[in-house]
């Protein structure tokens, strides 16, 4: 069964219980600089960190008609079906997909190159300056593997967060978007970007035409540079390498050395 997390941004109240639960379950605590932000927002940190995997983004948005909204949405690893981090990783097994769809990191195998940071279209993986390895949300794979829901889901007081079978949640997300549209939010919809094959973290947005208002990229994809690098360029390189060695050997057999009469 593929699992997923649904984030209904319309019922997020910005309480940060999910942030606290994530820090606590993953034993990361609060460190200096986290508790208070001095950039005039409610947001705990400007972006995710190697020791902070779940961040509520607070966005103040003025609409074209002059109306003002204060948007809150939880941000973390999207557990892409077509994962850019996995595509870019050179260490076998360091990034892997679990049977239930979770994209997870094995830190014993991570070599700290940071290619996943470049491959990720969501700016999620972060390098620890201490261990020189990369960290991100695991969708609480250590909880879900024993039948528990992720810590953030457990802590959410508003039912903004739901965890379950992906197919069920896609249906639930569509239904919520539908009821929002019936309530007058004509542009409400589901964020499940096709450019990365869909994600195992789904959003319901009151205005799905403007995902960047929520801090979500509009059309995330695995960058074509990464695809070219890990696809055709790899085969060109392999061909040159093998062709060079075989070619040199055959050349020697055919033409031999340039002997000089002494």
């Amino acid at each position, binding site marked *: 069964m593929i699992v997923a997390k649904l984030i209904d941004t319309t019922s997020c109240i910005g309480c940060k219980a999910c942030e606290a639960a994530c820090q606590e379950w993953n034993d990361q605590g609060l460190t200096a600089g986290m508790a208070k932000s001095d950039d005039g927002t409610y947001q705990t940190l400007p972006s995710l960190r190697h020791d902070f995997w779940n961040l509520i983004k607070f966005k103040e948005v003025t609409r074209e008609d002059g109306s003002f909204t204060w948007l809150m949405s939880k941000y973390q690893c999207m557990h892409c079906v077509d994962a850019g981090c996995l595509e*870019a*990783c*050179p*260490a*076998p097994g360091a990034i892997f997909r679990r049977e239930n769809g979770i994209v997870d990191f094995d830190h014993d*195998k991570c*070599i*700290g*190159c*940071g*290619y996943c*940071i*470049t491959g990720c279209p969501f700016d999620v993986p*972060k*390098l620890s300056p201490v261990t*020189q390895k990369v960290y991100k949300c695991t969708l609480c794979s250590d909880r879900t593997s024993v039948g528990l829901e992720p810590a953030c889901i457990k802590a959410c007081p508003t039912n903004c967060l739901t965890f379950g079978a992906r197919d069920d949640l896609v249906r639930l997300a569509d239904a919520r978007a539908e009821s929002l549209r019936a309530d007058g939010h004509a542009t409400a919809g589901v964020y499940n970007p096709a450019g990365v094959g869909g994600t195992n973290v789904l959003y319901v947005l009151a205005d799905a035409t403007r995902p960047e208002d929520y801090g979500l990229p509009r059309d995330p994809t695995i*960058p074509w*540079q*990464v695809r*070219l*690098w890990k696809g055709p*360029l*790899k085969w*060109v*390189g392999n061909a*040159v*390498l093998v062709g*060079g*060695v075989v070619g*040199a050997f055959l*050349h*020697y057999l055919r*033409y*031999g*050395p*340039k*002997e*000089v*009469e*002494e």
Partner: protein
Amino acid sequence: MRVLRFTFAERAVHWMTAISFLYAALTGLALWSPSLLWISSFFGGGEAVRRWHPWGGVSFAVALGLIFRNWSKDMRLDSEDRKWLSQAHRYAVNDESGLPEAGRFNAGQKVLFWTQSVAALLLFASGVALFWPEHMPRGLRLAAVLVHPSAAIVSIAGILIHIYMGIAAVPGALRGMVSGWVTEPWARAHHPRWYRESVKR
């Protein structure tokens, strides 16, 4: 009769470049694909390779810079070289009659020198972009993941030919780069203009 082809300083710098190159190329291959990470086990494992590959590259760039200082004047391509290059296929099949006479370096060696110099600049610049994944703009890093391996492929291809010629195709060449000395017939056969103008006198 023996002829001094490379001074101690030239040889030392050449081998510093060669060893740095081999290290950087092999550890680079380890990072090239998940199916090649096993190479890293000869160099202390994946983490050690990630940590030291960039410094192997810096060492290569510095050593190549010293080679550049030693040889860039001798490496200028002239009209004779262009003629030589247009007939390089004849050199490749050991039919050298009618090829322009080579000076201290033949045109093939000169092309290798300039190829490696440009490749090293590209490798260094893109390597810097890859070194700090969290502090470099993403656009730069995305360019670098293409430039770095592309330049490496060109560089490795050139060095494959260079190594093949040095250890197999041109007997006596390796001794020249190790001991510094070549025989007079060798110099006359492979670098006649150099032999005539600089050695014989």
